[in-house]
């Protein structure tokens, strides 16, 4: 039971530290660097202690950090789907025209511009001198992986 309390404390401390940094210093510590740092620190602790109980706790903690890393962009950014659902929850039944009007008023309507910027900032897209956009090798790899997932699981992607 002590070990369960320990892992819950680790998780609570991580989320609390993230919340404090985000709200007080406007700094998001949820970066790939932190995920890797947690992983390598865990590996080091594991080699040092060689304990089965600690191994279970560290796997749990690392998988939580990874899940949180995946979850947080969804919390930070308002996607168009979330905005539409939010408008539908607030207005139980609404005409499409009005819904469209409310959606266009929202910040999320500029979502394409924001995501394009995000892709450029994360080096997934390159802007050539003639202003044409090109995928980097990282971007191409992501497209291939996503195409494989969609095909393998028969997912409809609306292209």
């Amino acid at each position, binding site marked *: 039971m002590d070990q369960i309390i320990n892992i819950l404390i680790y998780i609570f401390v991580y989320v609390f530290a993230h919340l404090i940094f985000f709200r007080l210093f406007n700094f998001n510590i949820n970066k790939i660097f932190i995920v890797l740092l947690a992983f390598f620190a865990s590996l080091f602790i594991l080699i040092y202690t060689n304990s089965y109980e600690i191994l279970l706790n560290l796997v749990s903690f690392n998988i*939580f950090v990874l*899940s949180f890393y995946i979850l947080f962009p969804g919390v930070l950014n*308002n996607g168009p789907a979330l905005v539409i659902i939010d408008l539908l929850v607030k207005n139980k*039944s609404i005409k499409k025209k009005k819904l469209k009007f409310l959606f266009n008023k929202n910040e999320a309507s500029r979502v394409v511009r924001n995501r394009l910027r995000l892709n450029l900032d994360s080096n997934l897209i390159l802007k050539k001198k003639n*202003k*044409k*956009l090109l995928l980097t090798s990282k971007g191409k790899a992501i497209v291939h992986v996503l195409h494989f*997932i969609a095909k393998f699981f028969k997912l409809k992607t609306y292209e």
Partner: protein
Amino acid sequence: MNKLDIIVIFLPFIFTFFYALIFFARQQINSKHYLSNLIYSFIFILFINLYLILKFFNLFSSQQVFYIVFVYLCSSFIFMNLIQIPISSLQAKILKIIFKDPNLTEKLILKKYKSSNVFEERIKTFLFNKTITIKNSLIILENKKILLFYTFLKFLKKIYNIKIS
């Protein structure tokens, strides 16, 4: 470490692998309701997970039980997100658009992908997976399962002081 200890380490990942397999099988039968397939496959494996834990309860320590359930929940969450990316991620969609047409400029994309287009596309997606229905020209939220995700996200946004609209 005995054999059981080693099995326990891999058990939640094996359960997640079976979750992916069941989702794959359900998608082959009916790919129209991917969200239901994703949720029901997850619940089905979670029940098997809990049933096996209860059956062999005296073999596991409380920490191992917690580990098996917790790691299964987290790795399933990662799998669900992986499935969601090709369907609903706009960032991924922009990459696909540029991959298909390398002559696009930023201006052209923004012109082609106006907010009204994004809206229409999301409505089309919601209608296809029966999240919403249109009755007497009124849009109604039909799928109540989505409200679970919505409530969870809204709660997190409130903690982090991020407004939706």
